């Protein structure tokens, strides 16, 4: 039986498809017995699906640097 902390780590890994098969089995067993973790896991999965749905975009650090310099030049 794994601890809740360990379960949380595996749960996060699973959100990024980085949990191994054994980890997933351990996690699922834990979720089966632990109500709090299964609730957390559900919300965690929901966050992942929200992030995917939102289709987020960000600027690269390089772009930001260029922007900063240009802004600096205007002052």
């Amino acid at each position, binding site marked *: 039986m794994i601890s809740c902390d360990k379960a*949380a*780590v595996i749960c*996060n*890994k699973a*959100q*990024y498809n*980085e949990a191994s098969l054994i980890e997933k089995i351990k996690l699922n067993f834990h979720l089966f017995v632990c109500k709090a973790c299964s609730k957390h896991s559900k*919300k*965690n999965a929901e*966050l992942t699906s*929200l*992030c995917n*749905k*939102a*289709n*987020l*975009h*960000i*600027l690269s650090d390089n*772009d*930001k640097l260029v*922007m*900063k310099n*240009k*802004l600096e030049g*205007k*002052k």
Partner: protein
Amino acid sequence: MASHQLNPNIWVDQYADYLFNYAVTRVSDAEIAKDLVQETFFAGLKSAKNYKGDAAERTWLIAILKRKVIDHYRKINSKKGKAEVRMNYNSNSESEGDWLEEQVADPYSSMNDNILENEELGQAIQQCITKLPKKQSQVFVMKTIQGIDTEDICNELGINPSNLWVMIHRARTALMDCLNKNWF
């Protein structure tokens, strides 16, 4: 009410992603969106003395960006013919006489993406990310949005994987809380 102040030095770090996200969903071209954000910062700097301080800095910048997006569409539609809407029932002579019903969009194709809602969702998430501590948001963005491998992030930031997962965990928990308050 003049409780807000402008601080252009932190604009790029604080708001660039948020503004960029807003712009890119509206013009759907990353390069144009980048230029619009840049122009927004310039315009903000230029009219900083007109800032009354009754709106938060970010709200003020978004208002400028909104005008920039509108200006952009005006510019590309400035030729009169482009602005005209042409309705044509059936240009293809082969399908002449076919029923209009055959041309309606497949209702199931739009099930997945309720575009408007997703745009707002993106804003909400972005807003919550900016509230995270710097390190956490950095790791979360690299992992979730840019999709960089765990190993590469660890190398770049000089942390070990268990560190990374702890940060991810904290960021995700904070985000869940934040979205619970602001989204649901």
